[in-house]
């Protein structure tokens, strides 16, 4: 249980800046996801927290203690790796026991043959066996304890890796894309399992992923990283509904948010595709970009129209791909009712409520809007 504080963390590899000054605070007991496209520096940041990689400047505090220059194991964090990194020559039991043996046994007691003869080691081994058995029980891997990692499936290896992390009761857990080697179905299952584990342990989790769905479904807070900078942090709902930057809006949410070209008039009104929206803002006149989530596009009525070019029916929902004539633009609308799909190549009218609109300036920063008048009352979107 610990809070982790990062201040002005910078890191460069061979002259390339990977992290450009990260300030961030992970609260005690939080499940925080560091999310971003590959190469954004999120894994490097995690490795800096772990102590596996030294930062060029900046400080890391864990539980108020300054940990720079302290060995990874002495920071008392546990890490679960993407490849699980189980010791291939050791059984599941021994894999989980390694951190305990390294901590509790002296160097002499760890000696292969001689150590086994020492009575003190036997007593400690008894405790280790009990602890490992307890963890195995919790993770439901007791039948696997005698197997080698090579004989385990991906999901089982994943659990063993989590067990190896849990057994030492660390201050915080670090996860480096732990689900990306699993197949899609198992990934969804393990998502629920990890979230459940977090609720049970009430420990601090720092979870690195490039999969926004994992971040959205598991974490209490998401930190979105792009190009070595942390651009927004907040709860999943905040990040989804109130993206502060167009890159965040585009990265979070699947299918991607629709971005339409717009214009801010001199009087502060916003035009999209030549139609005025019932919105105003105080930003300077000029070009802007207007984002609308697929589920906020209402098909059937509205001032805009497009041609259906592709339909994706997923059973419970459907995605309608529309091409907008004249604008060379495509957008995606989500249909909750799959029984009434528009026909391919047909022309469909569509619109969106003013509160569904997010406007970004040409640099990608969010522009605050005022809704001029509520045309109709809508339920806020559930995410």
């Amino acid at each position, binding site marked *: 249980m610990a809070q982790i504080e990062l201040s002005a963390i910078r890191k460069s590899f061979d002259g390339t800046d990977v992290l450009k000054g990260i300030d961030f605070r992970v609260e005690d007991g939080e499940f925080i996801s560091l999310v971003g496209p590959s190469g954004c520096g999120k894994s490097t940041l995690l490795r800096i927290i772990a102590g596996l990689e030294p930062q060029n400047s900046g400080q890391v505090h864990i539980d108020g203690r300054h940990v720079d220059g302290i060995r*990874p194991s002495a920071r008392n964090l546990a890490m679960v790796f993407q490849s699980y990194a*189980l*010791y291939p020559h050791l059984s599941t039991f021994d894999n989980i026991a390694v951190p305990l043996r390294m901590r509790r046994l002296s160097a002499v007691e760890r000696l292969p043959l001689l150590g086994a003869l020492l009575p003190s080691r036997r007593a400690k081994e008894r405790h280790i066996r009990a602890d490992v058995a307890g963890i195995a029980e919790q993770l439901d891997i007791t039948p696997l304890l005698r197997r080698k990692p090579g004989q385990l499936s991906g999901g089982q290896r994943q659990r063993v890796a989590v067990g190896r992390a849990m057994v030492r009761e660390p201050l915080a857990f670090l996860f480096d894309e732990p689900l990306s080697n699993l197949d899609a179905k198992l990934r969804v299952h393990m998502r629920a399992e990890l979230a459940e584990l977090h609720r049970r342990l009430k420990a601090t989790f720092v979870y690195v992923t490039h999969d926004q769905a994992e971040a959205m479904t598991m974490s209490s807070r998401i930190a979105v990283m792009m190009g070595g900078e942390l651009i927004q942090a907040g709860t999943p709902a905040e990040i989804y509904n109130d993206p502060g930057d167009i890159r965040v809006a585009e990265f979070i949410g699947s299918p991607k948010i629709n971005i339409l070209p717009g214009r801010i008039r001199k009087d502060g009104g916003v035009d999209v595709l030549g139609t005025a929206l019932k919105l105003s803002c105080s930003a300077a006149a000029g070009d802007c970009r207007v984002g609308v989530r697929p589920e906020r596009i209402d098909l059937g009525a509205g001032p805009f129209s497009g041609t259906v070019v592709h339909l994706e029916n997923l059973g419970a929902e459907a995605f309608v791909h529309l091409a907008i004539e004249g604008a060379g633009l495509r957008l995606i609308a989500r249909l909750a009712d799959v029984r009434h799909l528009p026909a391919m190549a047909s022309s469909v009218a569509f619109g969106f409520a003013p509160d569904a609109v997010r406007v970004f300036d040409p640099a990608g920063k969010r522009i605050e809007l005022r809704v001029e008048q509520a045309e109709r009352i809508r339920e806020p979107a559930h995410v």
Partner: protein
Amino acid sequence: MSNAHSIPFRAILRHVLLIAGAALMLAPFIWMISTASKPQTEIFSSELHLIPHQFALAENLREAFAKANLLRFLLNGVIVTVSIFVLQVMVALPAAYALAKLRFLGRETLFALVLFGILIPPQATAIPVFLLLHKAGLLDSYAALVLPFTISVFGIFLMRQFFKTVPDDLVDAARMDGISEFGIVWRVMLPAAIPAVTAFGIFSVVAHWNDYFWPLIVLNSEQLRTPPLAVAHFRNNEAGTSYGPLMAAAMVIIAPLVIAFLFAQRRFIEGITLTGIK
């Protein structure tokens, strides 16, 4: 139709060629066994025959064991090859780990020097090493046989290449678990690299068991002789070489390797494929 004929013909040709090659390779061994089984008179007879008229293998073996302390020589061979291999592993594994997994200034230069070291034939350094051992007063001892080979650049290179394939995550996981860097070498890398260590072991043991050149240079005392020198024991310019016992002794000294090969044939082939050398 021509296909149906050409396939067996090709297969026959292939086998004939392979058998001819194998026979060529085996000929010296067969000749050795044949000579070791003949009495002195038959060895020098003008007619060539493989199967001796009179079997004298037992006598030749008895004479070989009587004239030279073959068991002692075999024991020397074991002591020397095992010591060399153990020391080589103790040097090569940490070095290879550092070259493969640690980041430090000059790593690439050091690795280039390792590669350069592979290119230097041992004969080229024989005289300086001999002089060094002489100054150190170590000539004519086990140390003289073992020490020059403890740092195997080939071993460092081979293990480094293998360690490169071990995922970095495994090393990081070990660090998180509190294993020291030397601990990582012995507890994590060594078990992961057993196939490479075996391959290197085969190469090292065979090379040093059969080494004739270096022991011949540094040894004087008879009791320190390694197996290949035992054969030379039977060469005698004054009394004439006694070929029967010589061949019998040769049979005895290659026997351990042949037996080891038969037992570990699969590993042997794996090892040689892995190292890419014969």
